[in-house]
Each structure stands twice: as structure tokens, then as C-alpha cells.
């Protein structure tokens, strides 16, 4: 059976490079699953978890601010930040979550709200990956 060569790349360098059977990501338009021999595709990703499946194992990667590029035998996820479960600083994510929640409660400025919402999303996303 053919596999997909998956690489997750951030400005700080490659986070993960390995072969997987299937990739499930949350694109802007909804969740999509990629199997080998997929048609070439480019799609932005939400702040979300990418699920990389190999056999019965599933590896999770927290993705924020990025997009994926798919070729028949290759998936590249380009993100401004991405972490696998063992690289997530849980304490930091928890703090970021609390900070963002507090800011959302006592601030009404739109730009700050949008920022805080994004920060909250990223923090929750990281915690989800770390805790599963």
C-alpha cells in the first residue's frame, strides 16, 4: 500500500517528517481527509489539530496559521507554528488561555478582541493536543 510523505514545516524549521497512511486536517471550508494519490490541492487550515494516521496509531499536531499543499504522494503543512504533543508547553498554553479569557471579559476593543479570540483558540488547540 502506498503512503504519504508528510512534512510539517514552520519558520523555525521542519517539525515532523515521516510517512503516514492518511492525513485529516481542518481546512477553512471543513474537515478534509487526504489519502495517497490525492489530486494536487492547496487549502488554508484553521487553527486546529492535524491527525496523521499510520496503521492503528494516530499522531496529533497542533497547527496555527497555515495551509496545506497536497501532491499525490506528499503532504506539506506550512504553518506559522506547529507542535506535536510532546513539544507542547502545557503550563504556557494554560496561562495563555487564562490571559486570553480575561482579556475577552474586560475588553471591548474590536482588534484586541479578535486577537484575544485567536490566542484563546490557539491555547485551547494546544491543550487539546497535549491532553489527548
Amino acid at each position, binding site marked *: 500500500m502506498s503512503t504519504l510523505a508528510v512534512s510539517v514545516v514552520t519558520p*523555525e524549521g521542519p517539525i515532523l517528517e515521516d510517512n503516514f497512511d492518511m492525513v485529516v486536517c481542518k481546512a477553512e471550508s471543513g474537515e478534509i481527509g487526504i489519502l495517497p494519490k490525492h489530486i494536487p490541492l492547496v487549502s488554508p487550515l484553521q487553527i486546529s489539530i492535524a491527525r496523521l494516521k499510520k496503521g492503528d496509531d494516530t499522531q496529533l499536531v497542533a497547527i496555527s496559521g497555515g495551509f496545506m499543499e497536497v501532491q499525490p504522494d506528499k503532504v506539506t503543512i506550512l504553518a506559522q507554528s506547529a507542535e506535536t504533543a510532546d513539544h507542547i508547553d502545557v503550563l504556557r498554553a494554560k496561562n495563555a488561555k487564562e490571559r486570553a479569557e480575561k482579556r475577552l471579559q474586560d475588553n471591548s476593543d474590536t482588534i484586541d478582541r479578535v486577537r484575544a479570540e485567536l490566542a484563546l483558540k490557539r491555547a485551547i488547540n494546544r491543550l487539546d493536543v497535549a491532553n489527548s
Partner: protein
Amino acid sequence: MKSLASLRDLKGRIDSTKKTKQITGAMELVSASKMSKAEQNARGFVPYADKLQEVVSSIANSNTGAQHPMLVKREVKKTGYLIVTSDRGLVGAYNSHILKSLVNNIEAKHTSKDEYTIIVIGRKGYDFCRKRGLPVTQSILGMPDHPTFADVKNLASETVQMYINQEIDELHIIYNHYVSAISQVVTNKQLLPIADLGEQGASTSNYEFEPNQEEILEVLLPQYAESLIFGALLDGKASEHAASMTAMRSATDNANELIGDLELSYNRARQAAITQEITEIVGGVAALE
């Protein structure tokens, strides 16, 4: 007596120069190790930048006519300059080259301060602009030696936002490009509108776009521009450490030379003192006979 005093003087100067030499020597080593780390960081960034550029150019060059303000030239009313400088001195001509290039650019292209604005990374550049009364809209001081993307993300996205909001119609970035440990070249690049995508990647694949090209460009182009700013910063940091290393090496060399000269004078003075003493003794003995 005079020669004794000057002997002590010389001895003191030799000692203090030796101490300076020790410090500059240590700083050279520190900079060398920082440089190799910075070089590594810059290399780690390359795969991301390459891939991003490939996808952007394959979309921009595809013939479906997807357009985006960041790809289109418009009339330039205001130009933004982003300069990458260091926070500390002792880096030789690293900063002055960049600032000279900035000033030359401004003098050549603009007549009034309303026509341009400056975005500064680094204390040296910030102080320079403040002193000269140049308009600075944004700045980051105290950039770490090995910046991460998060360190520059805010500045980068706000700068790109300025272009999208039409506050600036053009963005140039001026930084020192790292060629090798002994050579850094001042580089002045136009960042926005994105111009030099080239033809590469255009033919490699015909992508499906989900949901569509316009929306992807909407996400992709700001990300691309931000990544270019980060790339320039990494490049600039590698240059900074290299420049600092070179400056410290030449300081160490100068100290060596100075110590050599001083030791020669010291030995001469010592010899002169001995000769004088002998002459005095001989003179004294002759007077007694």
C-alpha cells in the same frame, strides 16, 4: 628617575592592553558561536520559505487571473522602509552601512517627511532615526540573539496590515545579507507589492484550490510577506554576529600590535636605564681614583 617613571607607565599600559585583548578575544569566540547558531537558524528557515514561495508563485502565475492587492503595483504616495539593525554596538560598520543606505534612499527619492515612514528593528537604528527626526511608525528593541518567529510576528503582521490598509504603497526592507563569516552585503529589497516571484514552480503542479484562489491568496500572501520579513531578520542576525566577530578579531589584532610596540619601548627604556646606571657607577669610580 624619569626613566623609572616611564618604565612603570609603560608596564601599566602593557598590562591594561593585555586585559583588553583578553576581553575582545573572548567576545570574538562568543560571537563566533552565536554566528554559527544564527547561520543554522537561517538554514532551518529555508525549507519553509522555499515551499511558501513555490506555492505562491504557482498560484500567482497560474493563468486564471487571480488577483490580489499585494501583487498589484499602485501609485506610490508613501513608502515604508523596514530596517534591521543591532541592539548593541561593537559590530564594526554593520549598522552604519544600513543607515547610510537608508539615508541615501531617502535623499534620492523623497522630498518631504510625509512621503515615507520607517519601521525599525534594533536599538541602534531607532536611536539614529530619533536623533535625526525621521518618522518611525513601529519598532522592536531588544530582539534576542536568536529570534523566533513569535518575536517578530506582531511587527510583521502590522507592517503588512499597513500596506493592506493603504497607509503605505510600497515596502522596502534594508538589511545585511550574510554571505560568509567575513562578507556581509547591504541588501535593499522591495517586499511589497510582491514582485519577483519568478517563473519557478509555475509548471510543477496544477493545483486544485479549496475553497478558491482568491481566498487562498488572502491567507497566503500576508503569510508569505511576514515570512520574508522573518527571513531578513534571521539573515541580518547572522550578519550581525559575523560583523561582531570580525570587529572583535581586528580589535584583538590591534591589541597584539600595540602590545608589541609597547614591549619594544619598554625594553629600550629598561636598557637605557641600565646603561645609565653603569655609566654613573663607572663615573663615580673614576672620580674616586
